[in-house]
C-alpha cells in the first residue's frame, strides 16, 4: 500500500529524463508527492501545509549536489525538516524537591495505565522509588488493572477504591508517598475527551492541587487528523510538558506525532513499543522521521541486534569462524540469535527498500518463519556427534532425523547443502575472497 516517498519522487524525476532542469511544474509535482505522503502518514492537513511551504523555501535555495540524485536530495531536505519539526527528544524533568509528581493524561484507550506501569518500571530500574496512583475511578476495573501491574512489577500502588474523588485521591497519595519514602509519584488519570468540560475541569483540579512536575499526554500512534485538536485541547486546559506515543510497534506511520508536536511545541519523551512492561523506548527524531517517510529503520535494527547478541558468545563464534570450525551446533546458535531479534518480517521491514518488496508477500514471511523452525527441529534431532561432524550422516541416520523432526530427507539434504555452502564461504573469507552471501532464508 505505501510506497516510500523516495520511490515516488524517483518516479517524478524519471519523467524529467535527461533534461535535468527543474521547471516550476516539476517542483509542484514533487511537492504534491511529499504532501500526499505526509497526509497518508496521518500528519494533520494544516501542519502539512506549513511544512510544504518550508520545504519549498529550502528546496528552491538548495544547491544541487552531484553526489545525490534529485530524489535523494529532496528526501534529505524533507527528512531534515521533519526532524526539526519533531524536535529534540525530551527527558523526564525530575528537578526540585521530591516527590516528583508525573501526571498522565489522554483519551480513552490510548494506553495510559500500561504506560504508568512501564514508566514505573523504568524509574525503578534507574534507582527511583516510584508509587503508582490509581486515579481512574470511572473505567471498570482500571484500579484492579493498576494493582495487577503493581504486583507484577513489585511496585506499590495507592488507591482508595473509589471512596473519594480523583483530586482527593491524588492529594492523599502524596501523603502516602511521603510515608513510604517514594520519590516519584505517577498519577494514572481516567481517559477523557478534550471536549468534555467537566472531566477536563477535574484534571485542572488535580493539577492545581498536587502541582505535578510533568504532565504527559499519552497518545495512540494510530490517531488520525484529530490529533491536533486532542493535543491542543489538553495543552490549553492542563499545560502539557511532554508527549508519549503508544502502540508504535504497529505499522502506523505515526504522523500524529508531528501534528501534536507542531501544535503544542512540547517535546516527545517516550515511545511505547509493545505490550510487555519493558517495551518503552526513548524517542529518536531521526527514526520517527524515517518511519513517517517510509524509509525503513536501520538504526532500530542495529540496536536490536546489539541487544540480542551476547558479547562472549559472539567472540567465541568469531574464534570458530576464523578457524573454519563452523558446525551445525553453531549454525543453530546463529539461527536462534537471529530469532531473538524478533519476527523475521519485522526485521526485514526495517531494512530500507525491503519494506516495499514485502508488500503483499505475507505468505513468504510466514513460510520463512516456518523454515527456521524446521531447521531448528532437524538440528535438535541430531546427536551431538552428528552436529559436530555432519559428514557421518548416512541415509539411515537421515531417515531417523527426518522422522524425529517431522521433516523429509530432502529437507535435511537442503540444510546440509546450505551448511556446506556456508563453510565454503567461510574458507573464502579466511582466504580473503568473499563474494556473495549465501541465501539463508
Amino acid at each position, binding site marked *: *500500500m505505501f510506497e516510500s516517498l523516495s520511490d515516488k519522487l524517483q518516479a517524478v524525476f524519471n519523467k524529467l529524463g535527461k533534461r535535468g532542469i527543474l521547471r516550476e511544474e516539476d517542483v509542484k509535482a514533487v511537492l504534491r508527492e511529499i504532501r*500526499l505522503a505526509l*497526509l*497518508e*502518514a*496521518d500528519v*494533520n*492537513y494544516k501542519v502539512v501545509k506549513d511544512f510544504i511551504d518550508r520545504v519549498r523555501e529550502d528546496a528552491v535555495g538548495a544547491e544541487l549536489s552531484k553526489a545525490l540524485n534529485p530524489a535523494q536530495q529532496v528526501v534529505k531536505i524533507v527528512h531534515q525538516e521533519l526532524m526539526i519539526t519533531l524536535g529534540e527528544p525530551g527527558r523526564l524533568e525530575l528537578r526540585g524537591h521530591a516527590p516528583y509528581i508525573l501526571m498522565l493524561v489522554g*483519551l*480513552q*484507550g*490510548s*494506553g495510559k495505565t500500561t504506560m504508568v506501569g512501564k514508566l514505573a518500571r523504568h524509574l525503578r530500574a534507574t534507582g527511583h522509588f516510584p508509587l503508582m496512583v490509581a486515579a481512574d475511578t*470511572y*473505567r*471498570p*476495573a*482500571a484500579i*484492579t*488493572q*493498576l*494493582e*495487577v*501491574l503493581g504486583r*507484577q512489577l513489585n511496585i506499590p500502588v495507592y488507591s482508595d477504591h473509589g471512596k473519594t474523588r480523583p483530586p482527593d485521591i491524588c492529594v492523599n497519595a502524596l501523603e502516602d508517598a511521603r510515608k513510604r519514602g517514594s520519590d516519584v509519584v505517577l498519577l494514572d488519570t481516567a481517559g477523557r*475527551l*478534550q*471536549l468534555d468540560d467537566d472531566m477536563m475541569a477535574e484534571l485542572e483540579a488535580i493539577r492545581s492541587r498536587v502541582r505535578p512536575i510533568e504532565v504527559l499526554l499519552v497518545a*495512540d500512534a*494510530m*490517531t*488520525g*487528523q*484529530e*490529533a491536533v*485538536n*486532542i493535543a491542543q485541547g489538553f495543552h490549553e486546559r492542563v499545560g502539557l510538558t511532554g508527549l508519549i506515543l503508544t*502502540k508504535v*510497534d*504497529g*505499522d*502506523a*506511520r505515526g*504522523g*500524529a506525532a508531528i501534528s501534536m508536536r507542531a501544535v503544542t511545541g512540547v517535546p516527545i519523551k517516550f515511545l511505547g513499543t509493545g*505490550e510487555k512492561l519493558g517495551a518503552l523506548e526513548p524517542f529518536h527524531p531521526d527514526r520517527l522521521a524515517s518511519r513517517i517517510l517510509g524509509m525503513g529503520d536501520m538504526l532500530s535494527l542495529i540496536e536490536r541486534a546489539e541487544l540480542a547478541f551476547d558479547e562472549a558468545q559472539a567472540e567465541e563464534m568469531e574464534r570458530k569462524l576464523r578457524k573454519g570450525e563452523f558446525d551445525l551446533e553453531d549454525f543453530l546458535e546463529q539461527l536462534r540469535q537471529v530469532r531473538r531479534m524478533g*519476527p523475521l*518480517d*519485522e526485521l526485514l521491514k526495517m531494512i530500507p527498500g525491503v519494506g516495499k518488496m514485502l508488500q503483499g508477500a*505475507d505468505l513468504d*514471511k*510466514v513460510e520463512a*518463519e516456518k523454515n527456521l523452525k524446521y531447521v531448528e527441529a532437524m538440528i535438535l534431532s541430531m546427536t551431538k556427534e552428528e552436529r559436530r561432524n555432519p559428514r557421518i550422516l548416512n541415509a539411515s541416520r537421515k531417515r531417523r532425523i527426518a522422522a524425529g523432526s517431522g521433516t523429509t530427507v530432502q529437507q535435511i539434504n537442503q540444510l546440509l547443502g546450505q551448511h556446506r555452502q556456508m563453510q565454503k564461504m567461510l574458507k573464502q573469507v579466511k582466504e580473503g575472497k568473499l563474494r556473495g552471501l549465501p541465501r539463508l532464508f
Partner: protein
Amino acid sequence: MKGIFESLRKTRNAVFGQIANLFGAGEIDENTWDELESLLIQGDVGVETTLALIGKLRARIKEEGVYRAADLNRIVYEEILALLPEAPPLNLKWPLAVILIVGVNGSGKTTSIGKLAAHYRREGRKVVLAAADTFRAAAMDQLKVWGERAGVPVIDGPEGGDPSSVAYDAIEYAQSRKADMLIVDTAGRLHTQHNLMAEMEKIQRIIARRVAWAPHETFLVLDANTGQNGLIQAQQFLKAVKVSGIVLAKLDSSARGGMVLSIGHQLNLPVRYVGTGEKIEDMAPFDREAFVKGLLEQ
C-alpha cells in the same frame, strides 16, 4: 438514530458540514475541488478514497451538466453514500448465535461488548459473555463489571490462560443454560503480531468446532479517532478471521470516523454499530443514510 446525529454534529460543523457551504457559493472551480479535498482528508477519509471520490464527482458534474448548488449537494450525498456498502441482515438467527469481537489494543472492545449485550438483551435475547482476554491485566474484571450492568453472565478463565478454552467453556455454559447468544471478547492485538493473530484464528476454529457455522458474526472494533491505519487494520484482521462488520467506537463529538468511508470503499466491509459515550445505552445500529446526511447537513 438520534444518537448518531447528535454525535456527528460537531464533526459536521468542523469538517464535513463545510462541504455543503462549498457548493452553495458561486461557480465551481479548481479551488472548490481543492477545498473539498482538504475537507475530506481532514475527516480522515484518506488520500486514495478522497481522490477517487473527487474524480467521480468531477466526471458526473461534467456529464450531467450540473451547476445548481442543490443538485451538487445531492450528487455529493449519493457518491459518499455509494462508498458505504449496504449491509446484509445480521446473521444471528441461530439457536446459539456466536459473535466474535476483535480489534487492536484500546479500540473499545470491552465497552462495546457491554453495550451490545444490553442492546441484544433489550431485543429479548438471552446473552452470555466470554471474557477471553486473559492477557491484559484486569481485562476480565472489566468485562465482568459490564456483564453486571447489562445483567448477563460472564464466563472467564485463569489470568494468562488459554483464551480458546475460555471460549470453549463459555459455549458449554451457554448451551447448558439455553442461552441463544454468546459474545466473545478477545485480547487487543496489533495486526502486526503474527503469533497473536494466529491465537485469534485458533479461537475462531474452536468456536467453529463447537457450534455449527459459528462465529456467525465477527465484529472488528475500530476507534473513530484512528487515521489511515484503520484500513490496514481491517485488511490484516480480514486475513486472519472472517470479519463481517465494523463497530465504530468512540464516535464522540470530535471524532471523525471518515476512515469507514475508505474501509467501505476499498474492502466492502459494512459498519454495523456506532458507539458514542461511556453509558451502556450509548450504542446504535449504523444507518448509512443517516450517517452521510449527518456528515453533510448544515
